[in-house]
């Protein structure tokens, strides 16, 4: 099958690539663009380890063809820290030890970022629902919930 | 005093310990020794689990009392 032109902005960088039509977004991100921060934990869209932001909304990048993301803006975990400065969510994760093996962490951070962007002061219930899809086998989730709650409570307000 | 395993020579303080070692090691050499003495290794193990009391181990321990070399 003939390759098609994919125009995509990832972490504020514009790319033009030729990709096979069957290629998944997660494959293009990890292989062609070498952004291996986004992981894959399954083949059935069940674990959310591959979660990225597509035009500001969380999507499972294993469940989207790369060509479906043509013309969009994608944010991966590598795009959260601007110029080496960690985002509030990232700093909170560090302080709360909200990761262990780290394999689900990228997806978790993206889900958390999307939540805070949409609802700056979510309740615990809303936090749990926002990361319901993200499977973590190591932490038991509570440290992640505490980390997100702390950001929600304004403890990591950006310094001007 | 101790008892020497007739199969591999390891020394154990009493015949129950020796029986535990023989069953636990369970390799062909130990099985062959038990079977050569008129008992059946597997049957003894199954008796241990299917019947009340410590029958399988006690039977082997009795055999070892007779057959195993006693050392100081």
């Amino acid at each position, binding site marked *: 099958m003939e390759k098609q032109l994919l125009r995509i902005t990832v972490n504020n960088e514009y790319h033009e690539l030729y990709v096979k039509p069957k290629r998944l977004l997660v494959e293009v991100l*990890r292989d062609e663009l070498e952004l*291996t*921060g986004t*992981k894959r*934990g*399954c*083949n*059935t869209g*069940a*674990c959310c*380890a591959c979660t990225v932001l597509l035009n500001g909304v969380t999507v499972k990048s294993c469940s989207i063809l790369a060509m479906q993301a043509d013309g969009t803006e994608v944010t*991966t975990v*590598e795009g959260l*820290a601007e110029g080496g400065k*960690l985002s509030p969510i*990232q700093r909170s*994760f*560090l*302080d*709360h*030890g909200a*990761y*262990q*093996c*780290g*394999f*689900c*962490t*990228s997806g978790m951070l993206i889900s958390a970022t999307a939540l805070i962007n949409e609802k700056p002061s979510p309740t615990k219930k809303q*936090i*749990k629902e926002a*990361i*319901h899809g*993200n*499977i*973590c*086998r*190591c*932490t*038991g*989730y*509570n*440290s*992640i919930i505490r980390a997100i709650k702390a950001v929600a409570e304004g403890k990591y307000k950006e310094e001007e | 005093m101790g008892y020497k395993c007739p199969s591999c020579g390891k020394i154990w303080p009493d015949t*129950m310990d020796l029986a*535990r070692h023989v*069953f*636990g*090691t*369970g*390799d*062909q050499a130990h*099985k062959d020794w038990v079977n050569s003495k008129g008992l059946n290794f597997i049957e003894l*193990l*199954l008796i*241990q*689990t299917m019947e009340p*009391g*410590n029958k399988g*181990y006690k039977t082997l321990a009795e055999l070892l009392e007779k057959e195993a070399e006693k050392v100081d």
Partner: protein
Amino acid sequence: MKKYSVINTPIHNIDGIAKITGRAEYAFDIKLPHMLYGKILRSPYPHAKILKINTKKAEGLTGVKAVVTGKDTLGIKQGIWRRFKELCDEEILARSKVRYIGEPVAAVAAVDEDTAEEAMDLIEIEYESLPGVFEPIEAIKEGAPQLHEHAERNINVTRHIEWGDVDEGFKKADHVREDWFRCSSQHHVCMETHNAVASFTPDKKLTVWTSTQSHYYIQVLLSWVLGLRENDVRVISRYTGGGFGSKFELDSAQFCSSLLSMKLFKPVKIILTREEEFMATKRRTPMFYYLRTGVKKDGTFLAKEGRVFTEGGAYTSMGATALYLTGFFQAFPYVWPSYRYDGYRVYTNTAPTSAMRGFGAPQATFCAETQIDLIANDLGIDPIKIRRKNAMYPGYEVPGQATIQSCGLSQCLDKIEKWIKSQGKLPPNRGIGIAAYGFMSGGIFNWFDTPYAFSSAVIQVNIDGKVDLYIGSQDMGQGSNTTMTMICAEELGVQVEDIRLHMGDTESCPVDLGAWGSRETLMQGNAVKMAAAKAKQQIIEYAAAKLSPNIVYDLDIKDRWVHLIARPERGLSYYDVVKEAIRGKDGQPIIARGHYTPHRKGMISPAYSFGVQAVDAEVDPDTGKITLKNCVTAHDCGQVINPLGVKGQLEGAMAMAAGYGYTEDPSMDEGKILNPNLVDYKVLRATEMPETKVIEVETYEPEGPFGAKEAGEGLTNPTAGALGNAVFHATGLSVKNLPITPEKVLEALKEKKKKKKK
């Protein structure tokens, strides 16, 4: 409570920045020039002879570079119990016979995964299907299909533990109970599936990047099965995306990628799919448990007899250890005047069962703690009181097995009792159940037959005071990298930022047996502490020469200040002393080594952690659904080293153990796993996780570094039992068959109603 500068302070995990910025490179991420992609073809039959394999069509497909089968191997049957040859029974790539659905029979390397997949469909294999056997009770019957030539009646291993006179004990008992239990299997569900990138170069050296819990074991096992010199094999594993017991044996990704690379002299990457992960990697050992227990009417324990059959699956794997440990921990954490355990591991035509967090102890604890609550209920005794009456205590000797040194069990019971009282009366269909446990801090056994110390460490102090710490332990998320850095910093008297950690590479790191059996904190920790103490001593010698104190004074280093302990204002900067010390040593950096191997520490472990967990659960009588409301754990891990880490481990262990208790239901039919995906196999999600509270009970363990013991694995033991007991107190139902699913609850409710009617 002793105050430390580094340990027991909330330090950021030292791998934190890498992990939260997506920079951590797992073997899953490795990409090398000219790398090929591999796929493994697996047996669809649970038991069959391999008659013929024809790989010609597959080899002819464009993009396929090589196909390997069993005939391309040295035919070595390997296993991790190297000292016991008959237990080394697994070829990995089957040559003449397959014994479980999912057993590898061929592997392909191609330019991409899609091509490799296509090639697999072109491999022609002729099987002669044989009758299979799937349950241990069936497999030991006369005439059952025999899996291995050497194993009559499919009996793989047996274990026996005994002390006192159990039969006399039963005669003296006022109350005797018999109960049967079935403990299910469980899947590890590491987020990073098994994978490997193997690269064999023309100088006959093999490098393998892989996701593992023990790069040392993989190095040795690979060199064995491939016929290579041990140190011509290099295994690299800087980050591991979860292990939980599934990743310290040689696996199909490592073996097949190595074989393919050795044929092609190009790197070959194999990543197992999630489906393969369920079907064809090892899993928790399912157990059929019989317990007979005799007590006095005041609740004093007198005698316990346990008989267990485990479903071994097709190969020994680590199943022999699980068999022993379940028998050992069945008697934990109480004083039993007499005890007898007989365990049988039976081969079956199912995926091999092996090690999973807890290693036989979660199964033991579920059965033991469920029965204790039933006995307490029979006798009208409070569940806490009956446990307190029989609890282990510091100095207790488990006859012929172990000496318990530190033990905070009684304090844990007190804390939990207090919490339960604070909850007051519960609403209907709600109950609090408890379970007590004890667990090992690393094993004393050397069935791997290593000639090395169980754990080693090397320290080098450089001119700017930066410390290179080389360790062999593996961080799979449990935080050992941070723990070791903290131990080194505390002992040496510096801060965490002064340490540069080297791990995960057999080429440069000293040997450590790996992250399993909860051994890292105690064993690697002791080795690190020893090395740090020796390095500190060398620095102190120079400081002493400089300060010339009265000979009765001792020196120490704390917070980068080398000083007299009695007169801390008299001292020197650590940085200055290091500079001079190195000059004084002919310009050589300060180097020190440490190691640890348990000697004469009983039959199991040098030290034991303890705890009591309470689970507050609600049962919906209409649906049978269980909702976890709260979970409180009082636990004793000796001195806490990494508090953020311990809390995380506790919550994670609880989630995994709760899954074992009520949501994770591995269904199998005639050897075929029916739910090999994350939708149908349900691990706990964030919305199901209750509030968790941790109460630390501090003790000091003389065997451990700074008094520390394990904390990550023992916490997996109690939850299933506590949950089951919560269901019992909420509904009067005792479900003895894990997991406690809604269907089982409804079935039990139905039975209860029937009995009432009668």
